[in-house]
């Protein structure tokens, strides 16, 4: 679980996630930043006695941003680091990490099942992916998909294609549907 520790440290570095438990809890009003690190607005608000209120606004905004960060991180991982993305999904399936609220029904199930295909040998995985790559409708959709490069599409057309690529393509597609980059109406149009 070393990689999870690295991720936690990375998230902490950027100010997200829980701080180490051995640290003394911060008192309300003390704030995480030192006075010299704070901007002019925060310093002025503190001098006006509005420090606590301003801290609450900051904390709420930080919470909101951490949600956006999680979303961005997931789509970057699915696109550029598919293996790591699958490992993280596997970790969340077995309860090691927290899962985000699903955008559509069966999203969690889809992500878990496709993540665990990492453990399935290629000859078995091909039994599932072969019908997909031989389907003209599926290949038409892959060809039109804006975030899937031509290189990836050409790789799927090869006779000795890597079945993991098909799974990765499906995961990218789901990510795009979740973030709203591609709408279902468009997909239905390509499938005709």
């Amino acid at each position, binding site marked *: 679980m070393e990689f999870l520790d690295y991720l936690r440290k990375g998230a902490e570095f950027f100010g997200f996630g829980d701080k180490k438990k051995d640290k003394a809890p911060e008192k309300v009003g003390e704030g995480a930043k030192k006075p010299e690190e704070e901007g002019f607005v925060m310093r002025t*608000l503190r001098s*006006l006695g509005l420090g606590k209120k301003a801290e609450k606004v900051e904390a709420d*905004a930080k919470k909101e941003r951490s949600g956006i960060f999680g979303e961005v991180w997931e789509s970057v991982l699915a696109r550029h680091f598919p293996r790591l993305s699958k490992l993280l999904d596997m970790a969340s399936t077995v309860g090691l990490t927290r899962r985000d609220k699903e955008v559509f029904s069966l999203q969690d199930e889809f992500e878990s099942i496709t993540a665990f295909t990492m453990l399935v040998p290629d000859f078995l995985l091909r039994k599932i992916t072969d019908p997909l790559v031989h389907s003209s409708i599926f290949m038409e959709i892959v060809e039109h998909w804006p975030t899937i490069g031509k290189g990836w599409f050409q790789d799927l057309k090869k006779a000795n294609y890597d079945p993991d690529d098909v799974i990765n393509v499906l995961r990218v597609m789901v990510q795009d549907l979740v*973030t709203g980059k591609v709408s279902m109406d468009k997909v239905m149009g390509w499938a005709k």
Partner: protein
Amino acid sequence: MKEILALIQLSPMDAREKAMWMMLIPQMEEKQVLKLKKSLQKETDALNDMLLKGLTHK
């Protein structure tokens, strides 16, 4: 794009968080950028309102 970069620079985030968002923005989709923009705008507006009220009531 310029607008979101200006909002990041003006927001009360610490320097490393600002740097992180600057790096992530090119990887972000339009919808996510809009979400971030809305969140930063809301935070900046709330702090500015507070500042204005505080200064005028002193």
